């Protein structure tokens, strides 16, 4: 990693960070909270959920904090009325997209989407719910995939491909028809490449991937393995 230290401003606070660090990393080092969804420390970034968008002075567009590198003298605003509005709409869309019914969900109380909605003050959804009819795959001996609760953050795809190295998960379809799939859309239990390591289940932000035998609200995820693995493999995300 490059050694140069850059200084910039986040929400009016002078901060410093190593060259090549992202806005998100520097903000978290300085205890400035930027909401995220697809970001998980230790996984390659997707830049897909658009929740961590921030305003950077002089930039024409909003920039995702998870992939935007800091620059000397950069002035970042992580909170504004506009950003809050967009973040809320993003979360509203995620709720409206599939069938997120918290009270019966295994991850109720341990869910990143739920937590995001609470922090952003999303108390109602303006968009019509789409209630798609989506399958539940319980063919695996230990895990369940419930597409009704998936937010397509691609955490499972990335952890399986980049950390476990199995690349069992991927995405099929386009637009609103996207589904995460195992192998070539075979039942999870029949997947030849799956090592049953369960990393995908642990990084999943919602109850879309869960362990069998858990009842409503019992599926708390364990993610401590990720920073450990990346550290042991010489990565720089902690």
């Amino acid at each position, binding site marked *: 990693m490059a050694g140069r230290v850059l200084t910039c401003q986040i929400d009016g606070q002078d901060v410093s960070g190593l060259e090549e660090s992202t806005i998100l990393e520097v903000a978290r080092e300085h205890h400035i909270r930027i909401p995220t969804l697809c970001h998980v420390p230790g996984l390659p970034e997707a830049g897909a959920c*658009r929740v961590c968008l921030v305003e950077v002075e002089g930039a024409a567009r909003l920039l995702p904090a998870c992939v935007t590198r800091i620059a000397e003298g950069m002035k970042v605003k992580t909170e504004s009325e506009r950003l809050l509005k*967009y973040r809320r*709409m993003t979360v509203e869309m995620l709720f409206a997209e599939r069938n997120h019914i918290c009270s019966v969900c295994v991850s109720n109380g341990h869910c990143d989407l739920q937590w995001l909605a609470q922090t952003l003050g999303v108390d109602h959804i303006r968009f019509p719910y789409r209630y798609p009819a989506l399958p539940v795959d319980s063919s695996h001996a230990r895990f369940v995939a419930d597409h009704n609760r998936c937010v*397509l953050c691609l955490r499972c795809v990335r952890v399986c491909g980049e950390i476990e190295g199995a690349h069992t998960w991927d*995405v099929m379809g386009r*637009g*609103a028809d996207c589904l995460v799939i195992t192998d070539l859309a075979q039942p999870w239990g029949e997947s030849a490449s799956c090592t049953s390591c369960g990393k995908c289940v642990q990084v999943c932000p919602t109850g879309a991937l869960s362990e069998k035998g858990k009842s409503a609200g019992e599926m708390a995820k364990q993610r401590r393995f990720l920073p450990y693995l990346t550290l042991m493999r010489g990565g720089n995300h902690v």
Partner: protein
Amino acid sequence: MSPDEIRGMAEREREHQAGRSCVLQVCTAAGCQPMQSVEIKTALEAEAKARGIGEHQCQVKSVGCLGLCGSGPLVRREPDGAMYQRVTPGDAPAILDSLGSAPPTHLFLDTRQPFFARQTRIVTANSGRIDPERLEDYLAAGGYATLARVLTEMSPQEVIGEITRSGLRGRGGGGYPTGLKWSTVAKSPGTPKTIICNADEGDPGAFMDRSVLESDPHRMIEGMLIAAYAVGASEGYIYIRAEYPLAIARLKTALRHAERHGLLGNNICGTRFNLRIELRLGAGAFVCGEETALIASIEGNRGTPRPRPPYPAERGLFGHPTLINNVETYANVPSILERGGEWFAGIGTERSKGTKVFALTGSIANTGLIEVPMGITLRDIVFEIGGGVPEGARFKAVQTGGPSGGCIPEQYLNTPVDYESLMSLGSIMGSGGMIIMDDSSSMIDVARYFMEFCMTESCGKCIPCRMGTVEMHELLGRFLNGSAAKADLDLLEDLCEMVKSTSLCGLGQSAPNPVLTTLRYFRPEYDAALAAGGR
């Protein structure tokens, strides 16, 4: 081939052509081919043979697009340039009867009309003149002579300097300065460098790149060769959509001929410059026209965009510095190097130089392909060149830039066509599709059509585009079926703003444009829909 061999081969072909007293050029591009133009060519050849007219007297030749597709199939006559329209195979005797005199009235196409007279042809200079499947024809038209001169007499920096001076900007939609892009790739550390041609033209109603590839594929290849030399690339890819079978076939032929004659491969023109070009066929995803998605697709991954920076110029295909331009941009390059950047900069406006190819479709008299200097007004394009909307209808709007563009109403028709002016109207130059609409079109319906397009073509990676387009499509539907309420209009406007500001790639960022421009210029239609629903 060495520069001398190129010259020699061109010279021989020119002498050969000069011996013919008459050439009948039959358009066999994708516009005329389904209208039996291949059969027309066969009929003309058979008729000539039956009359004992040899090929040295009158040659029947397959050529690319002659422009006025709406009047096709077209046949052009050399040396006088007279044209025949709406030809059928049965017209062959009448055409051969008329050699040396004016075409019969029912076939006669006036080439002095503004459609032809007001065009400035650079990219399409050889379209409809040369046989796209013969390298010799391109050579005779001066092809690859510029490449030979560039490779033997100019340094890469000089080439980039010439492109920068020309003021050429990307013709794929964004309008990024080409010279700047080239110099960034040239300066980026890392080898091998890669060059990509984006031929994944996907806008509804747009067929400029297809036409260039079907009519003059070598021009684009020569442009790519010059670009590769300038930036130091040795690997090349052409990413073309599989929906263009004829363009693919002609491109393959052209690549094969170029390879056979040493214009591709190692030691091109006897220099140390090497370039290999491979074809990659797109599987029908609009988003693969976005450069990072296109690169992912060539790499064998799912065609989804990734956040930029890093830009492909820095880290592109397989992590190498990559130059990516579209077909029309490359097709401009040989002419710029041949005649100089100053010459090119003399055409067009202050910030938009050169010409632009447009595909005119929709409610317009002259459907077809045109090339006009930048700065020409929309009115001139629609009413002069395009001949206006057909009788009985009234012009309502012109849609530019495909699903990323907007609908421009009559009061702005005097706007000059350049990147900035179109953007200030809420539309974009785009790749060159121009759809003309008359008063029978509902603008809400138009907006919903484009939204449906974006919705089904969204890759699904980011939520604003994945769901925002679905929600906007649904809201527009409410306006059309009379169930919209005032709150829906507010939500629609909020959504437009949000999707535009937060989407990951250009597809999502520009998806609201058709809605935004129709809201801006045709608001009464939305209000009327609200009033009609009584809510």
